[in-house]
């Protein structure tokens, strides 16, 4: 009985060495002979370490690619998160510390779709509702304005947010994978991890959109700058290690495109949903430079808001 115990112990040491040298590697396909029963025993006994526990919970929970994409279990593997994990990821997206890669530190090979999806839905409704409130507050002094809830804006917000949160990661992932195949020292991310980063980085816009209902001009633009800096830095710190080894031009161009698209989203939200009204009150984005000259009460009452 001594030799099976020795074999078990050696198996685990090798696995631990492999894990410590490359923590990002997935350990899903173990096919060495004679190790069928032993990982089970060793796993239960020596899984005190947090990393080991996570790896073992992955192994216990089944491989990531369980079944085909037409089975329910395949999608269930993307919702394998607890409340504390989701809250931890949200905190990581709101407080980006330099040097902490969001993917490596928070996602840790367990990308989920719960966070991105529900953050997008919440963002859609918070932008639409806050935009409604803002229009109401801006036009409160106007006796001719009859408040009507602009419900069609929800559809527009939904289309915009979901396109941004799914198409941009698709493009970015495709680009990074292509570069990875060209130059081999670039480490790319999986598509789900990219979607995850983008989804969680949109979280900062939810409180920002609620605060945008304050109709003071400089507060609105200050909020935009703060939100863009925070979520942009999350994205930059995540993707910089992936493109750092590429040529300088490609690296900086990629970073610039990421930041520019993010900025475009923020400014677009502000201009479309929170616009200062024109005399017709109809939907023309970008009309904030035209003063509402036809309504004397509005022009007199709020000169600074209609810049």
């Amino acid at each position: 009985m001594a030799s099976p115990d020795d074999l078990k112990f050696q198996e685990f040491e090798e696995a631990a060495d492999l894990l410590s040298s490359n923590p990002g590697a997935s350990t899903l396909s173990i096919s060495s002979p004679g190790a069928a029963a032993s990982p089970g025993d060793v796993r239960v006994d020596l899984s005190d370490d947090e990393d080991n526990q996570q790896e073992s919970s992955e192994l216990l929970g089944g491989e990531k690619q369980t079944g085909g994409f037409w089975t329910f279990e395949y999608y269930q593997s993307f919702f394998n998160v607890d409340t504390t994990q989701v809250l931890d990821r949200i905190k990581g997206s709101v407080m980006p510390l330099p040097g902490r890669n969001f993917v490596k530190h928070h996602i840790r090979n367990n990308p989920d779709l719960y966070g991105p999806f529900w953050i997008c839905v919440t963002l859609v409704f918070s932008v639409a509702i806050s935009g409604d409130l803002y229009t109401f507050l801006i036009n409160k002094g106007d006796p001719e304005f009859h408040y009507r809830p602009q419900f069609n804006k929800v559809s527009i917000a939904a289309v915009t947010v979901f396109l941004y949160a799914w198409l941009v990661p698709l493009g970015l992932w495709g680009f990074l994978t292509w570069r990875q195949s060209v130059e081999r020292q670039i480490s790319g991310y999986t598509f789900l991890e990219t979607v995850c980063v983008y989804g969680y980085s949109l979280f900062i816009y939810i409180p920002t959109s609620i605060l945008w209902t304050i109709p003071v001009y400089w507060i609105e633009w200050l909020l935009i700058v703060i939100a863009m800096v925070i979520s942009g830095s999350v994205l930059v710190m995540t993707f910089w290690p992936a493109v750092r080894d590429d040529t300088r031009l490609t690296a900086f161009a990629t970073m610039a495109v990421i930041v520019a698209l993010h900025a475009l989203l923020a400014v677009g939200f502000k201009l479309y949903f929170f616009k200062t009204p024109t005399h017709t009150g109809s939907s023309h984005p970008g009309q904030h430079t035209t003063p509402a000259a036809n309504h004397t009460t509005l022009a007199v009452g709020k000169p600074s808001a209609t810049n």
Partner: protein
Amino acid sequence: MAEVEESSKPLFAGLSDISISEDIPVEGDISVPVGSQNADNDFSTLDEPVKDTILRDLRAVGQKFVHVMYPKKSSALLRDWDLWGPLLLCVTLALMLQGGSVDSEEDGRPQFAEVFVIIWFGSVIITLNSKLLGGTISFFQSLCVLGYCILPLTVAMIVCRIVLLGSSGLVSFIVRLIVVTASFSWSTFASTAFLADSQPPNRKALVVYPVFLFYFVIGWMILTFSPSH
């Protein structure tokens, strides 16, 4: 007779050699029981008067309404689910919320189809979410619970319309705000009481939050309903 005994011992061999002697009685009674209309009176509701059918369903719906208004952890809502109540509530709410097309130039009120789609699509997505997170509740049971818990919000809508008939100033707005907030929290609390038990304990908040968001959006639609003058 000895021949029969010897050749019947191996089961399938030599079966063709067996001859049945007249000493072994082979007789019985093959007859179909004639009283077929008595046998399935528990399950066939085809012959009852229409009044009975409708009243039975209405009584079930009414009983579930009572369960929603006084939510305690009973499993009656889950056990016999039906979707009549949610349909009734959804159609009532959508009819009361919709904007007419004959209204003025910028009627931004939600159309009937938008409210209907939001309620049903929202319920389906929340149900899928709870199942993906590992819930043990079935699809239609969850739809049933979410639909029935719209009842407090429908009551709030009726109250708001009555309040708006009187005045539409600040006082009526505060009254409406209080009524809608109370009913939306009641809805969330009622549906959580039914749904939360079926989730693993470390994911309860993940399941409750979409329900909260769903009823919040419906409450917002009710609160911002402004009558057409």
